[in-house]
């Protein structure tokens, strides 16, 4: 009886211990047979990643975080147990990120070219790579709390802007805005009309341009024809004749130029004479104006002019009288 009791108690203790320990190891996924590959990555900060967190490769669970320990120079070293025969990507990096909104974190192994375009992440990866060694470079993505904090700050800014807009946008501002909109509508209509007119003009201009282009094409064809003629003329010796005629014309032009030069010289002399004549005339005219000489006296002295005029009148009367009565003045007697 006593042996039976001892056996039952011993068996219970043994079974209980084995079951509890075995279950604990199974839940913890302890690798007793060492069937996993170990990979260590280096981080500045591991966020809320814990031992046992999932390691994900291309979205598939490929292992778990086995150990987290503080390293040298402020690094944190995370050892991951990966399932055997899981190939790592080329240039692998490890990102620690939240896998859900409920505080679960995971380690994601990915290619460096596939990491998010984030300056902080790139800086962390570069720093971890510069540290050297065989450890994979790692970076920690911001958690939901940080993102929420940023979103909260943005929301606060938006609220601030909204309140400022509310302050600035009173009834007066609304009226002014309404007036501005009305003005804008008017302006818009005028602009539309102008655009319409300009469009018509543009159409006309376009038509003219098209005509011009046609004429230009026609001229080009003419030029081409002339060029062809020149080309054919070159072939028949007409150009030589033309050149000869041009030489003759040039000689004639030269002679004409000589004649013109001679004429120019003669004109220069005539000009000198004319200038002398003008000087003399000017002197005479000055004397006349000064009342010198007979003509000057006649021009400048009105009394003399009137006397002369009276004398002429009287003389004209005398001549008439002489014509009418010659005998009155001429008395020829022979005897």
């Amino acid at each position, binding site marked *: 009886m006593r042996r039976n009791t001892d056996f*039952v108690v011993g068996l219970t203790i043994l079974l*209980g211990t084995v*079951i*509890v320990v075995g*279950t604990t190891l199974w839940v913890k996924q302890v690798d007793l047979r060492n069937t996993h590959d170990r990979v260590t990555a280096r981080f500045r900060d591991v966020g809320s990643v814990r031992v046992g967190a999932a390691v994900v490769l291309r979205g598939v669970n490929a292992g778990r975080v086995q150990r987290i320990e503080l390293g040298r120079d402020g690094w944190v070293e995370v050892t991951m147990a990966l399932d055997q025969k899981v190939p790592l990507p080329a240039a692998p990096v490890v990102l620690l990120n939240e896998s859900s909104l*409920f505080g679960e974190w995971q380690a994601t192994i990915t290619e460096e070219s596939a990491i998010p375009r984030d300056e902080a992440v790139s800086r962390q990866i570069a720093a971890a790579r510069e540290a050297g060694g065989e450890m994979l470079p790692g970076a920690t993505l911001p958690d939901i709390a940080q993102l929420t904090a940023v979103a909260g700050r943005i929301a606060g800014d938006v609220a601030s802007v909204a309140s400022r807009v509310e302050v600035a946008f009173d009834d007066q501002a609304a009226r002014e805005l309404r007036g501005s909109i009305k003005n804008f509508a008017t302006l818009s209509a005028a602009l539309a009309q102008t655009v319409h007119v300009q469009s018509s003009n543009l159409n006309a201009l376009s038509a003219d341009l098209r005509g011009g282009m046609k004429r230009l094409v026609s001229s080009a064809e003419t030029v081409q024809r002339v060029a062809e003629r020149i080309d054919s003329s070159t072939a028949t010796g007409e150009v030589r004749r033309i050149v000869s005629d041009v030489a003759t014309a040039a000689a004639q032009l030269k002679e004409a130029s000589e004649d013109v030069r001679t004429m120019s010289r003669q004109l220069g002399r005539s000009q000198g004479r004319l200038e002398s004549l003008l000087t003399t005339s000017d002197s005479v005219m000055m004397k006349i104006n000064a009342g010198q000489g007979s003509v000057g006296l006649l021009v400048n002295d009105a009394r003399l002019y009137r006397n002369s005029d009276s004398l002429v009148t009287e003389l004209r009367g005398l001549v008439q009288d002489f014509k009418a009565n010659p005998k009155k003045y001429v008395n020829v007697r022979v005897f």
Partner: protein
Amino acid sequence: MIAAIGRTFREGIEQVGRAGGFVAESAGASRDVRTWLPRVTAHARMLGVDSLPIALFIALFTGIVLALLASYSITGAVPLYFVGTLVEKTITMELAPVLTGLALAGRVGANIAAELGTMRVTEQIDALETLSYDPYAYLVVPRVLAGTMMFPIVVGLAMVVGVAAGWAASVLLLDLSSPDFVKGLRLFFTSFDVRYGLVKSASFGAAVTLIGCMTGMRAQGGAEGVGRAATRAVVYSAITILVLDAFWATVWLLGKSR
């Protein structure tokens, strides 16, 4: 009234002193190995092995109810695989130790108190003393050791059965796949959860057996006194289990969470 307060305070102090004296006597008696060692397995069988059915039965239904309760509570934005997390944490750290402890407080504590109380009122303990047996080494130490040793075994198995029952209930009764439950189970599991539950249950075992022995050995007044001792043992054990539960949470969990 002031005298009543003083008397109550004095009696409280006396109780604490007597309990301290009882524990000291038991610790002193533990040196008499030849007296208590042959009797340990018999008490271990009675306190532990024979208590397994009731403990596992409680754990079985606790696991099922807890899974259903968790699924009811966390539907909505929270993923359903958190049922596994909730079942694991609650069963391992709290419900398996405390419910099993309370159940065994009723079964074991009352049993010990009644047995020792009967021995006291029928002067069997006095006879032991007459025969130069140390009643503490003969009656108390093997029971306390058996309780301290077997409670963690019973509670450990209750943990496994409770989580397994929660798993089965989640798969069979809820729209939750087995991998999802295991994912939630493993999500925040640490070996500390199990250590915490087992250490706590060992302290419950020690407390329940000590209280049972103490109330039984102080029983007076015939069958009525034996009944009173059994009742007192169950009540004191239940209170002590809850106090110890709070004590471990304060000492261990509070320190870890900081």
